[in-house]
């Protein structure tokens, strides 16, 4: 009897240990490359893809998670990683969308992960409040840290993980071991990701302030009050910061004190993070307009109107701007003119921002599908 009890305990312990080990492991031959490693493709969250994207796009594969997909995936070296509201983190093969592994967590994932080398970092929402670092090569959990409600995407830069907590604090952790390097408290809740450009970290809070901190130390350099709460990520590029407020005002700031270069007031409220490319800033509004602004002057270039709000941050390339909308459609516009070039209708709203890798587009939808598009035949018509 005693032996049986001990055996049972041993089995249970082993099972527990096994379950602690992440089921996220890439198949052999995984080679991390540049890829799309975080929200916006880089620490400044510009959303710019420097490769070639050819239209029309064709659906290559789709994978169904068990719940809506709000966050954007990361794509590196044959792997697509993303979290879902079904409390799972998924790892798919980029070639065919086959499931390579998944990790069940205690709470949902609405923020985009970040990847560096072979390690993927992601955070969970209220109820688990933890940031995880998983080695995709070994499948081991490298570290985890309980920070708070994480609904904002992670930013990786300077071997640090920058994470915003719903409680209003902003943290910089060591990417290596998860130790906290510094933290910063804003005056409100922080739901927006931080953008990193050079030595500076830019962070928006729903207290209406944009904060500029030193990346190494977290020391505040300046703060600028905007017209309302900041829900979405700033975009930082070459010393300029572009950010929008909830009430639909877009700002461009630069300089040591964050002087406002220009501002643009949309007719509706802002519904997603801006993106930039080719000297333009692209912003989506909740009245269904995607507008292109001149990055230097803020002058409106064009607006394209869809049925419903545009919650996803656009993906830009040299020629195109691609975004998802609440009407469930993925749109591709001519970046110069705003003319519709291609579209695809998924089931439900597309809140996730599309990402690109080797000419392919990946985007998640509220219908629970992760879609992968690639170059289609010349004569294939615009899809759905």
């Amino acid at each position, binding site marked *: 009897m005693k032996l049986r009890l001990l055996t049972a305990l041993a089995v249970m312990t082993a099972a527990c240990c096994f379950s602690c080990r992440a089921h996220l492991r890439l198949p052999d031959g995984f080679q991390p490359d540049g890829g799309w490693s975080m929200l916006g493709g880089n620490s400044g969250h510009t959303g710019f893809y420097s490769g070639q994207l050819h239209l029309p796009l064709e659906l290559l594969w789709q994978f169904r998670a068990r719940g809506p997909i709000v966050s954007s995936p990361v794509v590196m070296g044959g792997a697509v990683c993303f979290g879902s509201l079904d409390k799972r983190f998924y790892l798919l093969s980029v070639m065919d969308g086959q499931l390579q592994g998944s990790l069940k967590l205690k709470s949902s994932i609405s923020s985009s992960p970040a990847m560096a080398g072979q390690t993927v970092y992601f955070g969970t929402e*209220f109820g688990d409040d933890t940031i995880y670092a998983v080695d995709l090569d070994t499948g081991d959990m490298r570290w985890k840290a309980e920070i708070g409600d994480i609904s904002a995407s992670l930013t990786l830069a300077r071997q640090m993980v920058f994470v915003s907590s719903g409680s209003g604090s902003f943290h910089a952790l060591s990417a290596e071991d998860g130790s906290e390097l510094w933290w910063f408290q804003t005056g409100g809740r922080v739901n927006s990701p931080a953008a990193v450009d050079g030595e500076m970290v830019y962070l928006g809070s729903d207290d209406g302030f944009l904060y500029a901190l030193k990346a190494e130390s977290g020391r505040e350099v300046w703060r600028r009050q905007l017209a*309302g709460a900041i*829900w979405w990520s700033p975009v930082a590029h070459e010393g300029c910061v572009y950010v929008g407020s909830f009430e639909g005002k877009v700002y461009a700031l630069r300089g040591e004190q964050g002087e406002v270069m220009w501002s643009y007031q949309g007719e509706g409220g802002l519904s997603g993070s801006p993106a930039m490319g080719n000297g333009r800033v692209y912003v989506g509004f909740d*009245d269904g307009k995607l507008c292109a602004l001149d990055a230097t002057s803020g002058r409106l270039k064009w607006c394209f109107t869809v049925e*419903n709000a545009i919650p996803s941050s656009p993906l830009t390339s040299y020629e195109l701007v691609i975004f998802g909308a609440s009407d469930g459609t993925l749109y591709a516009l001519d970046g110069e003119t705003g003319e519709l070039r291609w579209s695809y209708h998924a089931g439900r709203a597309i809140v996730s921002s599309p990402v690109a890798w080797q000419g392919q587009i990946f985007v998640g939808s509220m219908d629970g599908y992760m879609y992968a598009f690639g170059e289609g035949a010349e004569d294939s018509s615009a899809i759905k």
Partner: protein
Amino acid sequence: MTFNMELLAAEEPIMRRLSIILTISLICIFGLLSEGQAQFYFGKNKIQYTDFKWQVMKTDHFEVYFYPQERMLAEAAAAMAERSYRELAAKFHQPLSRPIPLILYSAHNYFQQTNTTPYMLPESVGGFMEFMKGRVVIPFNGSYARLDRTIRHELVHVFNLAKLRIVLRDHDKFQYYLPPLWMIEGLAEYWSGRWDARAEMVMRDAVISGNLVPLEQMYRINGTFQMYKEGQSAVEFIAQRYGEDKILRLFENWWKAKKFRDVLEITLGCSLKELDRQWQYSLKKRYFPLMKDHDMPEQVADQLTTVGSNLKPAVCPAMGLGEEGVVFMSNRMGYEAIYLLTPGEEGNKERRLVRGERSPEFESLHLHRSKLNLSGDGVLAFISKSRETDVLNLMDIETGCVVHKFKFPSLISLSSPCWSPGGDEIVFSGADFHGHVDLYMVEIQGGALSRLTADIYDDRDPSWSPDGRFLAFSSDRSPQGRRGFHSLYLYRIGEGEIEQLTEGSHNDYAPSWSPEGDRIAFSSDRKGVFNLYILDVGEGDRSVHRLTNIITGAFDPDWSVDGRQLVFSAYGNQQFQIYRMGIPDSLEPGVLALRSDGGDPWRPAKLTAPRAPSLVRYRKKLSLDIAQSAVSYDPVFGVGGGFQVALTDMLGDHQYYFLVNNIASARRDFLSSFNLGFSYFNLSRRTNFGGGGFHFVDDYFDDYYGWYYERQFGAFVTASHPFSKFHRIELSTLLKNSDKENYDTGKSRSTILSSSYFSFIKDTSLWGPVGPMDGSRMKLTLGLTWEPRSGRVFNRAVMADLRQYFRISHRISHAVRLVGRYSQGVEPQIFYMGGSWDMRGYPRRHFMGRKLILLNNELRVPVIDNLLVGFPFGNLELRAIRGAIFLDVGNAWNENLSLKEELYQVHGAFGIGLRARMGYFTVLRLDFAKITDFDTIFPRTRVQFFFGWNY
């Protein structure tokens, strides 16, 4: 949905052994047909007077249900709805996937006929959104701006509920719960329109009079106008203090906790208690300083009334009354009524002239909508709802008799009549089938009707100048009218020209000419709340002078005969009272009434390209309202399971109910143990009718017949015809095959029976928190059950239930109920009595027999209005605890006795009781009774604790 507990005291033998499913099914089936429906024991009647030829206009996001006469209105409503949809989809970050049904009525009198809800719709309901099919049902009241706001308000509910449902579903949370009502309605008010004078009035009064209800206790005033405004104020505070984004964030965080207060704390970072404290503090800072520069009405005018809400005063010439009096409307006793107040040496005397809400002639007096007016010889003109439409009544004040009525076939609703100086004509506002409110004039002799204005604008409150040449009235025809603002206008009698008198982004209402004809008193919110102003209309520039500076609101001025005083109503302490004040010799400096030349008239919204709406005829298409299943287990009777389904069409005119359950205790009995029922009810016509079929089989226990098995199947038809809101007849006929076997006696019988019942029902009751307080209820029933094959009469039944409620004071009443039941035949009906609902002090069903008589007397008194008991796990609150002192007398028997012998055999009970309201549907009852046979009073006090409304 309300339950009618009387149904559970039905005439038929109550089956002791009922499967739970069947019990729930019957209750739910009848519960769906709540007191507004004719099938209930009592209840008032919702009458479908009008045969609407419904059509459907399909737009991008809506299906607008309308009838041809309101086509223009429907197009405007569709445009408003689409615009609101776009804005709200952006605000909620949530588009909707299905078209929203929007059902439009061109007048409130039509709206009250709707079957989309089983409830009676009082005039205070300006529209609603219902859960079953997500329908938005709205009446038009003459103002397009008001329609726009109402549509938007209801759509906020649609989006709000959808957002919460989707957020919970996306996060795998299936426990669907809603924010508190103040939050739901407050958000709808906040996002549907601006903060207006009425909102300001209610909030100022609440704060200054100390009647502000804290957020955590807002449930106490659920459904009241104050709750709406406090909610709107609180939501606005959240937006201003914490950011507009927090409102959306609150809903997006809905999955993070199971209680509103927790989600709020997660979102705002402060507790509900702290938020409440901050909000109340901000209100006090805002409103207390106003006392320095504003007046309370009783400080600047003589208060003439004190009890209840009193509105729409009109000066009554002295005539034979001695001094000048005032007529006004009041709901002080719960019913709407018109009173005459005359001053006297020993104080003011009040006489009730018209009792409203108790007869078909005066179903409603439009307390908040229609003014009163008297002619020089003391004939009162007032409007009442009488059956389908409104009627203009003329009443001689001295005799109290209605001397004439005018009913206009082309007009649905009327308001605010005004006599001509000579007493030959009356002008009033009227709404036609299209819903537009215009001015009309009727000649007293002959009744010829003339239409004075004919347009889309909301023309109200006409007032005749003393020289008979002009009408002053209020209208939204100015450019600011697009946003709902009303200004004053002058209409030249005989010429039809209209001249603008005032202008601005505010409201000017209720003009009243001075006796000299050189001034017009009116009510205006140009300074934030309604106050009285005087407009000079003599020679020269017309200027407006402020007369009152009341902190809350003053309305409906009327001049005394000598032109030196005004009577008006003012708001304070959550009620309206009537006041009288003198006109000062010199008024405040005036401002120009009209500074601009006006502007282009506005037109209602129209749907914009590119997609034109499609129009189709309405087709009855059923959809699911209720589908529920249940499984039950009883240690004695075994297992049962089943489901029930309710299907109705979009307009609620056609209702289908299906019920299936099985009570087999062994496999071999499965097929033979099905209980099936289906019924169909057609509510589209004035006479409601229905029918259905059933198959029931079960073992039953009856106190009289004992244990027996019965299998019955058959069909029934039923019809109900209302004569008025208060009276109806019902007829039902049932034909069934009945196989019955009595386990105790071994006797069995198999027969075909037909039962027919005919009832006359009257209900004018006024309800308090735990039951009726005033009015009367009556039900008289004749029943016959017979065997068609042999012609043999199984039983006859005569039943009477008479209830009268004598109002002793505002909160005390004496309730009397007399019940008599008699059945005769081969298998007479057996009636039961005993327990908390009829003969208190005795066990339930203690008395049984084919004859029954019962007399209840009960004095109903208030005890405690609110009792809050704190427990470690939370608070228990009992609201509206009422007391009762009762005397019950009655008996049931089978023998054929003389009346004297029957009276000698009656039993009685007397005692005291308490009733406590628990939520909306339940009343707890606690009675302490002593029983007697009228020879002896038995010493033991019987305590009974049960539930149920007062009779």
